[in-house]
């Protein structure tokens, strides 16, 4: 390029020299002038070419820079992909054993679902601080989900107005069944706040017992503290070896001991009473014997009265008791 340009310059210079010479000799020649013009045109062309050359060169440089930049970018991407892969490989994955299929019946599944629902689904309205307000994009497909045929067959505006009520009632009924569908509920309340039946927001939070309640998908600390492990720990702290120790059996044993003690007392009391009764009977018997002896004595004296009174022994006995008491006194 430089050589080419140098040649053109030389040609212009030579043409100019010759022109000047001829002019100095006062002998201008048209041919020389034409040559000078041609040389000048050639130089201009050469300069234009140079300009293009320079532009192209700059462009090549820029492109080179760009490729270098893209290369580094690519390298970065590849290395980050490599790192990502390494990280992914390091993440522990759930190892699913090859024959991990277990048989179960629908009834068992439903039973299990019922049992765990208390711990896996928060009660209605409990959001743990997560904003569950539906985004416009999320609410749009809701009628589709509930009534796919209807909303697809009808125009959007129609389905919007027609399915509004059924959708909310559907969600409300499922709310009653224990599934918290907070987004639709809040949606309905916001749409009905204009009516007079809506509660002011500060009352709504006060009246809701679950307001600000949190839902934990694991046993809480108080549950752990009141559990079996804690009970065993308390036993250990009291110095009792929990192995083979059963508080209930212990309590039953204590109860049995108490019952045995009570029974023994009862028996002793019964024996005492029996002894007393025996003594009383003995006394009565002796009294009767004495009375009989007295009767015999009386018969020996005035038999008439005694013979008449003999059949009425009980009244006689009663009268005699008094006598006996008197005797004892």
């Amino acid at each position, binding site marked *: 390029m430089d050589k080419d340009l140098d040649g053109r310059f030389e040609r212009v210079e030579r043409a100019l020299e010759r022109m000047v010479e001829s002019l100095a000799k006062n002998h201008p020649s048209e041919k020389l002038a034409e040559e000078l013009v041609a040389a000048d045109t050639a130089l201009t062309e050469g300069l234009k070419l140079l300009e293009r050359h320079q532009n192209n060169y700059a462009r090549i440089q820029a492109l080179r820079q760009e490729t270098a930049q893209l290369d580094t970018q690519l390298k970065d991407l590849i290395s980050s992909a490599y790192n990502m892969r390494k990280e992914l490989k390091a993440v522990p994955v759930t190892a699913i054993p090859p024959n991990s299929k277990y048989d179960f019946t629908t009834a068992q599944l439903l039973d299990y679902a019922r049992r765990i629902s208390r*711990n896996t689904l928060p009660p209605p309205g409990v959001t743990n601080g997560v904003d*569950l307000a539906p985004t416009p994009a999320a609410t749009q497909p809701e009628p589709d989900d509930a009534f796919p045929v209807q909303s697809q067959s009808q125009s959007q505006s129609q389905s919007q107005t027609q399915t509004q009520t059924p959708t909310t009632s559907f969600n409300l009924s499922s709310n009653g069944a224990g599934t918290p569908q907070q987004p639709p509920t809040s949606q309905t309340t916001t749409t009905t706040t204009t009516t007079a039946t809506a509660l002011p927001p500060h009352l709504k939070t006060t009246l809701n017992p679950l307001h600000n309640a949190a*839902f934990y998908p694991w046993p809480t600390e108080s549950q752990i503290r009141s559990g079996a*492990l804690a009970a*065993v720990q308390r036993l250990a702290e009291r110095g009792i070896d929990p*192995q083979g120790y059963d508080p209930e059996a212990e309590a039953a044993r204590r109860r049995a001991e108490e019952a045995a003690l009570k029974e023994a007392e009862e028996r002793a009391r019964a024996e005492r009473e029996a002894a007393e009764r025996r003594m009383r009977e003995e006394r009565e018997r002796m009294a009767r014997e004495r009375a009989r002896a007295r009767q015999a004595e009386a018969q020996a004296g005035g038999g008439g009265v005694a013979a008449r009174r003999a059949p009425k022994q009980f009244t006689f006995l009663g009268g005699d008791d008094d006598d006996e008491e008197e005797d004892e006194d």
Partner: protein
Amino acid sequence: MASGPMSVDSSALDPPALPETADGPKHGGFSRFELELELVQSLANPQYLNYLASRKFLTNPAFVAYLDYLQYWTRPPYLKFITYPAATIKILELLQEEKFREEIISPDLAQGLMVEGMKDAVEWHREG
């Protein structure tokens, strides 16, 4: 673990008998089945895990062997007794990783697990 001094022998145990047939020895009035079911679910509580870590349980080889043994809860017929399934199974799985056992001593990680867990508990049924 409240039952006695820990030894590595615990890993050699078979899973306890199911409650329908359980008639074995009792610990403080509870069967081994009851105690282990309660423990494995308590482990799902990040705060409890953090507490165990701070008491150096999670670095005790015997306890690690016990954690390995506790994995029988992830299989029938025991699986169906877990009433906090998601958190229990995941934590039990994580507890098999030494890195997790070491890092759960950080209150930040425990707090993060709690926040994430509570968020997931609300969000998992959002779309479905």
